[in-house]
């Protein structure tokens, strides 16, 4: 190895000393994520009617390589439908400990109802708190279960450690 | 349902007719009598009610469902009362191409009916039917049992006017090759264009 080689390598190192650091002082600072980042799932609604997009077909559960999703369906009441179809998901659960955030569920979904969002702060204390139901994932719910518990305890809004970001598939989700 | 209890069976006072019809078929083919029996009821009452369906089913030892299945296959039979003048527009390919849709639209607008309906006085009823087997003279309008062929808007107006006077005009029979007399067929909707 020649001295020249060492100098060249050190040069790269030195040049970085003068660049703006990429480190983000999370949690003081908010994290910027890529648009294609796969975080906590959202269950979307049709923006015009407010009906759930999920029709309870269970294809996400079939596609899930980690068996993290459980769906139970029921028939819509035609006078007061939950979803825009004849069936809807009466139970929709994702076990976030099992989930590997691969996004297969999103690809399998025929109605674009389940989309992986950008929220990533899912840490919690008890196993049962990692099973997210419809109430935890429907569009409009912000934050993980723990964040929402904390926010309620402290009497303030949920604050995400996530810089404002956007992904077109996340219809109606606002970070 | 009230009808079921009060209406007299149709064939009760016509035992000879019933026997004659049943006699046309061997015993193992008794169900073949279904069509003539339906036809008798249809001709007399202008429709076949559920009570009559049940009665015929009973006579032939069939289920009402079977009778209804056969009956509904033919546009000849009606489950609802139709008007004294039952207008049937052929809606199959040749007539469609020759303007049957415009003919139906015109009848709908003029009579204020949609296909399947009967007007309040019970004079007119309108129905779209499948092929009437007269493609060479399309479009065809069948009123009760009479064919009116190659009907244009003016023909329809004349026909309706006559029927409002309770006259069913003689149809002008046309055949293939009669075109010199009538000129090329003009679909109903294009006449005023």
């Amino acid at each position, binding site marked *: 190895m020649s001295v020249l080689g060492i100098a060249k390598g050190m040069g790269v190192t030195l040049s970085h000393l003068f660049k703006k650091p990429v480190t983000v002082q999370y949690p003081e600072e908010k994290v910027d994520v890529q648009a294609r980042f796969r975080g906590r799932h959202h269950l979307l609604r049709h923006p015009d009617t407010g009906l759930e997009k999920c029709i309870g077909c269970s294809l996400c559960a079939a596609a899930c390589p980690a068996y993290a999703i459980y769906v139970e*369906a029921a028939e819509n009441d035609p006078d007061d439908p939950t979803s825009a179809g004849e069936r809807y998901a009466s139970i929709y659960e994702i076990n976030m400990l099992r989930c590997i955030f691969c996004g297969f569920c999103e690809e399998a979904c025929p*109605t674009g109802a389940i989309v992986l969002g950008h929220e990533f702060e899912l840490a919690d204390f008890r196993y049962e708190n990692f099973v997210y139901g419809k109430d935890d994932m429907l569009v409009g719910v912000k934050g993980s279960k723990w964040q929402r518990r904390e926010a309620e305890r402290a009497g303030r809004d949920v604050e995400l450690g996530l810089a404002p970001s956007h992904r077109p598939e996340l219809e109606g989700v606002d970070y | 349902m009230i009808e079921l209890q009060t209406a007299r069976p149709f064939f009760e006072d016509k035992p000879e007719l019933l026997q004659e019809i049943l006699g046309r078929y061997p015993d193992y083919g008794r169900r073949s009598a279904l069509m003539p029996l339906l036809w008798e009821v249809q001709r007399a009452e202008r429709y076949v009610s559920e009570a009559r369906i049940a009665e015929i089913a009973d006579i032939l030892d069939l289920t009402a469902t079977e009778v209804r299945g056969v009956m509904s*296959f033919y546009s000849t039979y009606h489950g609802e009362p139709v008007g004294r003048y039952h207008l049937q527009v052929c809606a199959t390919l040749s007539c469609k191409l020759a303007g049957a849709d415009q003919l139906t639209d015109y009848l709908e607008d003029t009579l204020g009916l949609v296909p399947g309906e009967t007007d309040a006085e019970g004079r007119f009823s309108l129905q779209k039917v499948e092929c009437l087997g007269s493609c060479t003279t399309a479009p065809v309008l069948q009123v009760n049992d009479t064919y009116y062929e190659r009907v244009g808007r003016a023909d329809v107006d004349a026909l309706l006017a006559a029927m409002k006077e309770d006259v069913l005009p003689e149809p002008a029979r046309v055949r293939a090759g009669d075109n010199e007399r009538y000129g090329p067929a003009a679909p109903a909707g294009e006449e005023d264009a």
Partner: protein
Amino acid sequence: MKIHVNDVPLDVAPGTSVIDAVFAAGYDVPYFCSQEYMSPIGACRMCLARVGAPRKDRATGEWILDEATGDAKIFWFPNPMATCTTQVMEGMVVDTLSKEVKRAQNGMVEFTLVNHPLDCPTCDKGGACELQDRAYEYGTGESRFVFDKRHQEKHHALSEAITLDRERCIHCKRCVRYFEEVPGDEVLDFIERGGHTYIGTLEDGLPSPFSGNITDICPVGALLDSTSRFRGRNWEYHHTDTTSLDDPSGAALRIDARTGRIERIKAGLNDEVNKTWIDDGTRFGHEYADHADRITLPMVRKDGRLEPVAWSEAMRVVRDKLGGVDGTKVGVAIRADATLEEGVAAQALAAHLGTGRLDHAPRPAASVLPGGAPATLRDVATSDGLLVLGDPTHEAAIVDLRIKDALKGVPPADLLPHGVPIADLRLTERMPRKTEILTVVAPYRTDLMKHAGRTVTPPAGGEGALLRALLALAHARTEAQGASDPGKAADAALAGWDDAVGMSAADAAALLDALAAAEAPVLIWGGFVSADPDADAAARALATAVGAKTLILGPMANAAGLERIGVLPSHERYAYDPASSEVRAWILGDLDPAQDPTVAKRFADLDALIVHAAFENATTALADVVLPAVTGYEKEGSTLNAEGRLLPVRAAPVEAGAATDFTGVVKAYGEAAGERLEGRSVRSARRVLKKRLDVDLAELPDDGRLLPPAPAAARGARALPARRAATGSALVVPSLVRIEHLDRNPTLLREHGGPTLRMHPSDAHAHGLTRGEVVTVPVGGIPRRLVVAPDDGVPEGTWLVPTLPDQPVGLHPLDLDALRRERGETAEVA
């Protein structure tokens, strides 16, 4: 017949359809409208293939040869043929692989999909749909149809248990044909025509006891089982192939369960037994198994209240309670739909306790094991002379269908390499039925009677007299043949005939003639005959006299099996009698005798009452210990059906807490008592049964195995139950629907209506009863809550009540004076 399918030379029987030849050669053609057990009609046009055959020269009668090769020249049919309705011909060549065939098949898939909604994600059939599969395999993969599809009703309740989606229907006509061809109830038909065609009924529901089968055979998601609507997707179900314990026909079932619940039941395939059909009671009657009332933990009475405890503690209490009772005064009784393994367990328990008071219930007065010539269901289906005593539709529903097979006169098809032929060309729509071969004898108008050439209505309980008269006549006629003047002697034999038995002398003679002329006559009887030992003896003798095989329909699924392995009292005196004052302690398997207030009074005085039950009932309310039982869907074991076929029973994964079958009870008892009893597990019970029956039940094939008939010495040697006087005006009749579970089966309850009290309209009028009224009336001591249903098929003076496990078929006293009306309560009557 030598043919070629693509490159495969094949030798097939004449009359085979081309589609079966193709499958036999290992190739595949798509099809929708064909079904193994129904006539091929070529309605869907999906099974197209190119077919050709050599031709003979008319002038010379020689095969026309191909000049180039010198072989017979193949003349191809001008168009692709529907292979299901084409018969094989000598030298035929079938091509299923060419581009032309693919194009034709593509085109048909596309055509079928034109009006089929693409709502597979919400469709219950999705993932198990024939159209979905065929569209993947044979479709073009993309749609050119950009127009509006046909719109029709999507949630039409064809009946309470069947939902029809008219948009999804592809008009294959399987369901319509099914009703005409299989049960013979034409309650469904095509309405309208062309693109407007839909299926519908005018019958106010689907009044056929076999309507549910159309949900199995529908190739798309148009006909769906309402009990499982939206409950799960097909790939999520855990499938259990088992045998029905609902009735003694032993129909194959497939139980689909998910997350510990039974979501639906479909028919299994057993060519020898049920083909692919099951009755509605079996199909829709599963909801009770998931009912919230299930007993899931053992319970012990403490301070007058039942408290949940662990099995070990419950069994300590049982051991201590029984320890204080003279072993010979303990009674053990299990229900007659228990498995053979449970029977062995009960025997082991009784032997350990030292009691001979072991029995299964309900058990009729006469044996339900056939004599020397037992008839199989195949024998029934191929018989040309059938005498049926009873109501097989309700006693063993599959027998009803096999009788209707016999009326068609088409023997079961031989199996091909791919199984049952897909298109059996011997079957046609609207086949003439040979009703003259069937005689039905029952004291009221049964469903089967409308298919019978001869019906006989003896007075209730009069089967014995009728059979004895027939037997005497048969003997007299045989003797007359040897007389010097046979004609005169035969007339003399007829002269003594008494029409009061239910049929005229001429009819009786005609019936005996028909049975004598038949090549394979079969005598079938059920509970009405078995309730009377004299009638049973006469029936057996008559079968021998006319050379008929016999099929006996027992009261519950495994009555024959439990009798065969000897779950019987050691002495006639010890037969199951819950009202007996000699018994000091009872161990009851899923029986509820305390519905009868006199039994309940008697039970209050027992030293120990131990009840193994799935639901709380009048008996568990009095019990000292209640042990949680599994239902027939959750058992592992084997059963013996009416024809003597051993069939496997397998456990579906149902969440039922600590519930076990009776072997589990014996195991836990043995542990508490420090004994290793035989039959403490299914495996150990099977070891015992292997010695006794010489069959390894663990190795039973899915379609079961016929058990050779029991040696005559083993039959009838055991005791008969203490007979109650078989009198009274209530005739308890068999029921296709299990009445004891009906309240917990909401779908079936809506479909079937409540349990009915049927009587002649004049009797209803005389007692001021109106149709649909709900009444409670004591029948044989048990107060029964029933819906009034006048029926002119019931003879005057007789009142029909559906059976319960604790109220066996036959005559029972009816206390009409104690009849109580439920004010304002009315119910639908099916």
